[in-house]
């Protein structure tokens, strides 16, 4: 019998109450409510939607009419609302508290963004409507594009990539296309620092490049000398994250860019951490050729429990003409046009001196419009002055955390100067047998989502704390107090920390069993299948 066929049993939930109280009948603990699966509480004959009867008429489904049961359980509307509301309460979220997940920029998600994205003129518009019926939507894309170009000091932007990793791919494909156009398709190596996000090497490898690691210096930055020494006629590009994943600004980026360009390569910048420098530094001034921007990080579109993201890519003059289709452009008549495959040639004549270089299409339709609307709303709310303040407060908050905790947690790069938007700690001075994981799980009991753990890989037992600019000083002080307390317990070897969390909806989950014997879908115990139809 698979685990899930055994179903949920109340006696399991009631077990091991930390305060010694008797298990409850339901397995619930006051506001901590257990919730069964829809497959256990619903059935195939229940529906929560009233649908008007179909018109009379003959079927034109041929011999394909469904004659089998699908097995999809339904719930009435009240049960549906309750099911998902109960599930929601088992999640931590920014709305509940500080969410210091490094490199993820978990800032407040303004509700005005949500309201604007739901205006029928944006939400209820089809991507293939005639372009003169969607001028407002195209204006949104174009207006956001102009902001992104100006904020980054770049030349162009590809708006269609669906997420950060998709944007990385877009940038790397622009580079590949540019090299091929130059007749230098033989450049096969992409240099990636050890501290990079895993998506960087995965992206480069997908595009057919050979990935080579570049080491970090003892102070957490790219080893410029090693990088320069590796440049040559086989190097296509360098992928650098700035600020990097150790939370540090890559001081030498301009020097590196100049060297890469001199050697005939391009510079890709992972813009995941743009929040630290928006309004203070323009990547275009540092010689970057392509950089993706995570609208779901810097520009506050919601993370949604794992997407949807949105990853526009800003491009240098050298790469702009290679951007994927479709793009939007305002022409002399003041209209914004959607440039798809058929008009690309005409557009290229007007804007790229006749070079029709686009490497193709990355997705159906025009990208994450719903995210563009939200990001533009956010950008207009903050304006140029507010966005600069965003970066300053994000960096201030991170440095405040760093300096408030460096006496209790090892901070490997703190001696080298200020950090940017995130503070990096290691497990160096925890008690024997205590790890970063224990600190993380201890923070859960304190009512926080843990920081990013075990990343970047260049620091042992890394703990990467990114508070963002949307935390008050009081919220930071409480978090600092909580992390200090947990760190002290880990240094003192408090055994209770090894079994934390104690107060979460679940204690530590067995990930090994999940991977060894994957149960990826519900399987009905016999009665449910029989009840259907």
């Amino acid at each position, binding site marked *: 019998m698979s*685990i899930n066929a055994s179903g949920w049993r109340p006696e399991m939930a009631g077990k091991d109450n930390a305060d010694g109280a008797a298990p409850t009948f339901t397995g619930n603990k006051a506001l901590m409510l257990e919730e069964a699966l829809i497959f256990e509480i619903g059935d195939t*004959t229940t529906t*929560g939607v009233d649908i008007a009867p*179909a018109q009379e008429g003959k079927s034109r489904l*041929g011999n*394909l009419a*469904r004659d089998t049961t*699908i097995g*999809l359980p*339904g719930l009435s509307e009240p049960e549906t609302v309750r*099911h*998902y509301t109960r599930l*929601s309460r*088992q*999640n931590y*979220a*920014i709305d509940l508290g500080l969410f210091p*997940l490094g490199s993820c920029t978990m800032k407040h998600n303004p509700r*005005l963004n*949500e*309201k*604007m994205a739901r205006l029928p*003129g944006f*939400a209820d518009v*089809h*991507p*293939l409507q*005639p372009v003169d019926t969607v001028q407002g939507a195209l204006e949104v894309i174009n*207006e956001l594009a102009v902001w992104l170009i*100006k904020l980054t000091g770049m030349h162009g932007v590809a708006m269609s990539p*669906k997420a950060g990793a*998709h944007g990385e791919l877009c940038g790397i494909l622009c580079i590949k296309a540019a090299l091929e156009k130059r007749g230098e398709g033989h450049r096969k190596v992409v240099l990636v620092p050890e501290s990079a996000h*895993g998506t960087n090497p995965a992206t480069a490898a997908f595009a057919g490049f050979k990935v080579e690691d570049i080491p970090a210096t003892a102070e957490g930055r790219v080893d410029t000398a090693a990088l320069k020494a590796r440049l040559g006629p086989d190097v296509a590009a360098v992928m650098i994250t700035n600020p990097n994943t150790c939370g540090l600004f890559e001081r030498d980026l*301009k020097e590196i860019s100049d060297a890469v360009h001199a050697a005939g390569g391009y510079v890709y910048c992972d813009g995941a951490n743009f929040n630290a420098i928006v*309004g203070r530094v323009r990547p275009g*001034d540092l010689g970057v050729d392509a950089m993706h921007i995570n609208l779901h990080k810097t520009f506050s579109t919601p993370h*949604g429990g*794992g997407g*949807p993201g949105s990853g526009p890519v800003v491009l240098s003059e050298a790469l702009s003409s290679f951007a994927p289709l479709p793009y939007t452009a305002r022409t002399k008549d003041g209209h914004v046009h959607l440039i798809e*495959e058929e008009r690309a040639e005409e557009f290229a004549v007007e804007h790229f001196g006749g070079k029709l270089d686009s*490497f193709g299409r990355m997705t*159906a*339709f025009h990208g994450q419009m719903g995210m563009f609307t939200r990001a533009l709303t956010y950008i207009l*709310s903050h304006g*140029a002055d*507010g966005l600069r303040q965003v970066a300053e407060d994000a960096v*201030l*908050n991170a440095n405040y955390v760093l300096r*408030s905790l460096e006496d209790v947690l090892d901070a490997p790069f703190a001696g080298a100067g200020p950090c940017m938007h995130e503070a990096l700690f290691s497990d160096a001075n925890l008690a024997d047998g205590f790890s970063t994981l224990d600190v*993380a799980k201890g923070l859960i009991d304190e009512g926080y989502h843990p920081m990013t753990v075990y*990343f970047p890989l260049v620091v042992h037992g890394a703990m990467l704390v990114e508070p963002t600019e949307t935390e*008050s000083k009081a*919220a930071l002080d409480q978090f600092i107090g909580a992390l200090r307390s947990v760190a002290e317990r880990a240094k003192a070897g408090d055994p209770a920390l090894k079994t934390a969390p104690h107060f979460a909806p*679940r204690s530590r*989950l067995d*990930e090994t*069993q*999940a991977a060894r014997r994957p*149960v990826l879908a*519900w399987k009905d115990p016999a009665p449910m299948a029989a009840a259907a139809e």
Partner: protein
Amino acid sequence: MRYLPLTQPDREAMLSVIGVDSIDALFVDVPEAARLDGPVHGLPNHASELSVERHMTALARRNTVAGEVPFFLGCGAYRHHVPASVDHLIQRGEFLTAYTPYQPEIAQGTLQMLFEFQTQVARLLGTDVANASMYDGSTACWEAIGMARRITRRGKAILSSGLHPHYVSVAKTMAKYTGDVLDTTSPTLVADMDLDALIARIDDDTSCVVVQYPDILGRIADLTPLADACHAKKALLIAVVTEPVALGAIRSPGEMDADIVVGEGQSLGVGLQFGGPYVGLFGCKDKYVRQMPGRLCGETVDADGRRGFVLTLSTREQHIRREKATSNICTNSGLCALAFSIHMTLLGEAGLRALATVNHAGAVAAAERLARVPGVELVNDVFFNEFTLKLSQEARPVVRTLADRGILAGVSLGRLYPDQDALANGLVVAVTETTTAEDVEALAAALEEVLA
């Protein structure tokens, strides 16, 4: 600056804890030449909620809203009624403002939802398993082609002429970099899908055949012979479903032995949104699960023996495998998957089948009415809620003319295949439960005038 809680005294107190006298001291690592001395030039400063709302509302008003006119567009994005509770529930802050569930003890809400979503999708597509979602249908389709290459170790994919042309474009773009050979052809305005032609092209180098069902012209056919032909040559059958509501009325590709079934889930819960964000569906047979891209949620137990859920099989993924990952994908489309799942739970099987019946009956009635317009010929014999008309003149100008009259008539094949003259008179019309008999009458009357 309403989103920034720090006060000036807070900032000063914090700078003093840090031990510096100004914020500039925290940006010392930025080379002097690259430091901006003030806000970026040429951009406006911060604005009130009221003023931003005015600006955005003015832009929104410049679009023709699908729900306010007779509306017949489909071709990969469909307008369905989404129950009010779906949008309410996805805006619960605990779903909306959560991150990827990397800390499962405090993310069981998202994880259980994903487990339910995976099961719903697998059952709908007729596959053993499904993942936790992809960016959209077009990227899911390409990922499936890559997966077939990894499984079969062959590099030639045969794409049906009925596959959405944007999906074909995405695959062509990506194949340039992976070296996959794509065998593609353009559709023709005939009643039958191109299954026989596909079968004839399968050879020993074929990794997969990709077929859309219903296809870009709305046609449907039994995929079983195609699946058999693929398997006889040890190739995989990939089926693409851009209208999941169809599977409430017709047999699923998985039931017809497709190996991988991908789809666009936008129809349920998500809405049109001018093309995104949408939600890619991805299911396959059990034996291929370790070659699947994207996130997977699995069941397990916690230290106290209670059932719980975690992200699993992450050794396929980029954050572990780096350059050896099955895909570079990091994010999925979590919130859209939630919307899909809630809508599906509200419908249940009974509701989905009723909804599919209404869609089909409405489409049949519309097709019959429109086919009576002089100068209009119905291409399809069989279809679900979308069908193709062949007009007596080029369809694209007709669509533009009707838009000026306040009718969004459908998708002209000239828009999708600008270089294919043989398709220029084709108009693809979608009918859902949101289409009224009056809408159909308005379209028929307008077509009568324009084609006269």
